[in-house]
């Protein structure tokens, strides 16, 4: 697959074309924080300021609130109306390698024993256009988790910002298909290819902070009972849900039915294992104490998930570090074990 390129000032026209056939989502600052929003029809300069969004792309496949079904009491029992996602295709433009990997990580879970139709339909109907990082954030540590900020095999089409142009590389058939529909595309020269590769390498070097993953499973296991350590780590945590909700791999949810006497709906919504009532049951709450909840979250990501699915459920995006009001740092927590 040869490299192609497109000039950045032609992006607006390109987005216009995409919007005709697809639901196009691009990074935007219009809501007071960086998020993937439907394209506003005008701005296409996000590459100049975009680092990463606050809410991760998982929200586009596994929304914070999702109506699953509606039911109505009829004469002969309940009539159920399933609300599966529609067939329209979403194009997500500008997804970072860490977030793309995160989607692959939670794909495994959502297609495990029970194949989640809500998540999987959206995943199949989406085209991911990745954008490589030219400058890492202070909070990034993807390199210690085998993720490269300058390339990605987890998207459909991968772009690198080489100045005035975006270099593009197809990764999957969907990506090739999308590329063939794009106008304003030209072939990239060998020089431009090497420039992109160099950029990728230099970004890797700029990421200096890392998380210690050597012998991780053994270290996690042997420190499980270390109550003193976990109490120390969790003292400043305030048990909100910010880290879990901004994490691209966290996936816990709650399902509730809300109804009045005649009809109602079943809704799935994000839930957080950090919140005190997450494990509350009629008889007891096994994670009543804060340190148990913090311990459980790190073990889930760094021990149980690798045990079950062969991959650490963390991609080094750094959002949890950036958004935590009290600066609980996963690199520190894991480093101290």
């Amino acid at each position, binding site marked *: 697959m040869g490299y192609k390129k497109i000039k950045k000032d032609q992006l607006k026209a390109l987005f216009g074309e995409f919007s005709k056939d697809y639901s196009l989502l691009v990074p935007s600052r219009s809501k007071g924080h960086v998020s993937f929003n439907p394209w506003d029809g005008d701005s296409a300069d996000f590459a100049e300021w975009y680092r990463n969004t606050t809410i991760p792309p998982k929200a586009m496949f596994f929304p914070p609130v999702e109506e699953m079904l509606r039911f109505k009491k009829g004469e002969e029992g309940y009539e159920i109306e399933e609300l599966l996602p529609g067939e329209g295709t979403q194009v997500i433009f500008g997804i970072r390698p860490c977030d793309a990997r995160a989607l692959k990580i939670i794909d495994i879970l959502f297609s495990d024993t029970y194949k989640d139709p809500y998540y999987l339909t959206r995943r199949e109907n989406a085209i991911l256009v990745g954008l490589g990082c030219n400058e890492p954030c202070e909070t990034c540590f993807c390199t210690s988790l085998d993720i490269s900020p300058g390339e990605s095999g987890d998207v459909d089409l991968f772009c690198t910002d080489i100045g005035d142009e975006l270099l593009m590389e197809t990764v999957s058939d969907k990506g090739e298909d999308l590329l063939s529909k794009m106008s304003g595309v030209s072939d990239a020269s060998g020089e431009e290819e090497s420039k992109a590769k160099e950029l990728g390498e230099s970004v890797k070097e700029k990421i200096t902070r890392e998380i210690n993953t050597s012998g991780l499973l053994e270290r996690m296991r042997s420190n499980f009972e270390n109550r003193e350590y976990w109490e120390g780590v969790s003292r400043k945590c*305030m048990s909100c849900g910010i880290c879990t909700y901004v994490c691209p791999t966290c996936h816990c949810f709650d399902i*509730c039915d809300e109804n009045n006497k005649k009809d109602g709906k079943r809704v799935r919504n994000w839930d957080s294992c950090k919140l005190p009532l997450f494990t509350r049951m009629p008889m007891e709450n096994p994670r009543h104490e804060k340190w148990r909840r913090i311990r459980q979250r790190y073990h889930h990501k760094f021990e149980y998930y690798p045990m079950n699915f062969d991959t650490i459920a963390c991609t080094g995006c750094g959002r949890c570090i950036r958004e935590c009001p009290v600066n609980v740092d996963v690199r520190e927590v894991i480093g101290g074990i």
Partner: protein
Amino acid sequence: MENKLKEEAGKLLKEGKVDYIIGFGKGTVKFRTSPLITNKEEDLDNLVINPFIANNLSRYPIELKSRVGIVVKGCDSRSLTSLIQDNKLNREDLVILGVPCEGVVDIKKVADQSKAEIDQITDINREGDSLAVQVNGSSKTIPFRDVVFDKCYGCAHPTPLEYDILLGSEVPPSLETEKSLKGIKELEEMDASDRWKFWKEQFSKCIRCYGCRNVCPACFCERCFVDVNMPQWVSTYATWQDNLVFQLIRTLHVTGRCSDCGECERACPVGIPLRSLQRKMVEEIKDLFGYEVGIDKDSPPVFTHYEATDPEDFIK
């Protein structure tokens, strides 16, 4: 101030006067601090006092349930006193180390003024009334007071009113109240339906992370009303209607205990201007009842007390 703090904190632990020290520690990210809660003397070396000490540490003593030495700025000390007024904490269990505060720097404002992204700022140093900012290899000097949090303007009590050890010299109150009420004034100028639209839009962003609730020292309920499911007052999921009801009721429950420390707004990951709600209530309480929270630890909280002359012009 930092050295004095480390010395005093060390003494308190060594002499067994407190079980824990709660202070501002070095953050793992530039221009941030992180609460440092420790009973070990060797950790005290990480205590800092710098222009970025935004955290309100007064939410921690209740959880720790022991004697603590706590570091507070002006706004935090009023939150702490509010908890004493509410009988959630005993004054005798606290050794208050007061930090007279000239303002806390809002890194977003520094980024805006330097016309750069936050990650491009490499260093910030306080030099008298200015900040020397290193961005992308070049230096800029910005007036310090231009980039402090909105809440810092018009701060009437920058020096803690209740303390055991004062770590620096007193700071006079600021007189720029108008600037801290900017968001509120803008909203008051809109008409009612525009205001509702504004809040509807803001709360469509809310993901119900409860960062605002958990960071707030005044939210000390063991079981919040949103967590009650018999009856289910507010849906557990994040629709804008429920998000708005949650925040409005939280505001009303916290009214009279809120010292406008601004942590709720700082914690919010999606940037909802929560101070425009909370600070409005602080002003209303002053207006209606002449009450300001956290001034006198012996005065009763505003809603456990009443006067025969309370305004009732709105009651038929």
